[in-house]
């Protein structure tokens, strides 16, 4: 298992956001994290990305272990070689072109030669269908284009685990299908994808496993077709009603 989250607990003030979350993900898996808003999905991704310190439990990604509180800079540096993240709002760097967004980390962090970084970035943008937008600034990109550039940016460092926060949120059904196929393609060489989503169709069609979160706990997990067609837990049922199935 490349991702091992064990009994993760996190409170902000008096509010318990995560109440002992445990799950694991294997190489090549596409895991969908689902649950009502406020259920802690995004927070889990943020703790795995070491953007959010937690109170107890452990996060282990490819052998790099995060512990409660502040972690050593060295640990975080190692962790970030293991995990990439695509934010819901993309957060492409406003002052850089699409291509420069993708080459920034390879040239500055991995110290890859500029020409090599650019040809690899072009290949990535091409595989995601946005190569023609390489010289556009983020403000000039459509939502779908920005998302694909953001995926390319995370992929440029070639992390074994890629996390996407609500990638389906602002896509129409056709685009959503395209995205699903792209993500499945990314898992083919053994990469693990953790994806939060509200979209049970998307999870059913593309995820290898679904994890249902409710009030900071994992309430149900398993094969998406099974869990989402025949929900056992009350929260899962509510979730499916809400999404209008």
């Amino acid at each position: 298992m490349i991702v091992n989250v064990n009994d993760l607990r996190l409170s902000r003030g008096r509010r318990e956001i995560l109440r002992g979350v445990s799950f694991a993900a294997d190489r090549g898996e596409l895991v969908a994290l689902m649950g009502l808003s406020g259920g802690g999905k995004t927070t889990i991704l943020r703790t795995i990305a070491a953007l959010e310190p937690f109170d107890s439990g452990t996060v282990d990604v490819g052998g790099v272990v995060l512990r409660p509180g502040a972690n050593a800079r060295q640990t975080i540096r190692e962790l970030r070689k293991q995990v990439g993240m695509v934010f819901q709002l993309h957060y492409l760097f406003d002052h850089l072109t699409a291509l420069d967004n993708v080459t920034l980390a390879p040239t500055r962090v991995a110290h890859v030669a500029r020409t090599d970084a650019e040809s690899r970035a072009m290949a990535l943008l091409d595989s995601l269908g946005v190569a023609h937008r390489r010289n556009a600034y983020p403000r000039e990109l459509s939502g779908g284009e920005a998302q694909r550039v953001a995926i390319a940016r995370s992929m440029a460092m070639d992390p074994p685990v890629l996390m996407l926060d609500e990638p389906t949120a602002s896509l129409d059904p056709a685009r959503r299908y395209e995205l699903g196929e792209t993500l499945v393609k990314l898992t083919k060489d053994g990469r693990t994808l953790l994806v939060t989503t509200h979209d049970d169709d998307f999870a059913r069609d593309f995820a290898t496993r679904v994890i249902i979160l409710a009030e900071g706990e994992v309430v149900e997990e398993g094969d998406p077709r099974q869990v989402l067609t025949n929900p056992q837990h009350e929260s899962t049922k509510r979730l499916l009603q809400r999404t209008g199935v």
Partner: protein
Amino acid sequence: MQARRAVFVFCILHFAFCIQAAEQPGILRWGGDAEGGAPFVEADPSNPAVVRGFDVDVAEQMAKGLGRKAQFVQVAFASIDQSVARGDFDIGMSGVEDTPPRRAMLSTTIPYYEFHEVLTVRSEDVSRFTDFSQLRGRKVGTLSATIAYERLLRAQREDGIEVVSYDDDVHPYEDLREGRLDAVLLDNIIAARSVSRVPGLTILPTNFQTGHYIGVLAKENTALRDRINDILRARMRDGTLERIYRKWNIWSDDEAAFLRVAPAIVPARPGRIAGATQKQSKLPLIARYIPSLLEASVITIALSCASMVLAIFIGILIASGRVYANGLSRAILTAYVEIVRGTPVLLQLFVLYYGLSSVIRLPAFLAALLGLGLNYAAYESEIYRGALEAVPRGQLEAARTLGLSEMQVFSLVRGPQAFRLALAPMTNDFVALLKDSSLVSVITVVELTKQTQIFATNIGSWVIPGLLCAALYLIFSLPLARLAGYLETKWRSASE
């Protein structure tokens, strides 16, 4: 009801005009600058509300002769002419020199005191510097917009000295002692007073130019001028002026000789003389000043640009410190910003140039650059801090998840984005700095505004110098203001 209101308004207006009107029955309002000090006019050390000096005594004689009471009005030395012309007081005195522009612009009394422009040097230099030719390439200071200043400009052209202009007549002598200057050219009575106060200085015997002090009145005020001239002549003849001058230790054989001929001097008739000379002499005079205005513009621009670079550099350091550093450094930086923003830049310039001169003797231009730069750094830092904090947290987190170090997040993502946000307000600040740079004339840097003031004093009018000066400032600042506007709209559309 309405009638009563009308009466009330009338009373108010009447009252207001009475305050405005210079000539009040029974009182002779005379303007002078007590900052000029003894022996002209100074605040009485035992009662600072009262002024004393030989000009005070002369004014009292005038008032007495008119059957009025003398009342002193404080006015900056450089503004005496303009103030009397607009009617702030009846007559301006306190070391006002007799010059052709004054005669053209105002009604002037007969001269009542004769002085000489003399050089003062450090005592050890007495044998080295006896004339301007020996001062080639050296700095000679004086009060700006005076006869002495004009004489030094001539020496600059003829003998290659460097002129340093001051707004007061105290600091030149202190700077002479400290080695910032090699000589000071000023009126002999100012020199005599200063060497008694500042040790180690010696006055050279040569008289470089003779000048006279006069009283100035508004141009149309010739009736009062004529009466005052009569009073002055009488007081010269009956020995009253001699008594006053002896009392203030400014009596000499030369003065005695002057007072014997002075009563016979016919006052210049402003109407005739001015009318005849103005048209012929003003144009070449204006032309003569244009190169120096352009030169002063170069100083203004160079100083503004250099100060802005310094302000940006230090501003970035302060802002990053306040955003990133720990409690103590942050508190120190916050204190710096608050102190600098909470005190006048004029005071800061004084402290840097004169206050610190016993510790470190900064050259004037450098002090000006540091003063403006350090002052604006406080304002810039606030802009940058705001801009740094305005960069969305998500941008920083995205950079972190890519593996960028905190330093890289700052230099590759947060800094460049904040810089774009800061560009428009920075440009506005630069325009403000361009204009604030005029303050450095207090520490002897002659920039555009100061040169304009000198220009105006010498041709006796603010109209043309003022227009030229304003035009030059606008030429520099308008494109910048346009740039700021452009950047603002560009960035706004970019972030939408």
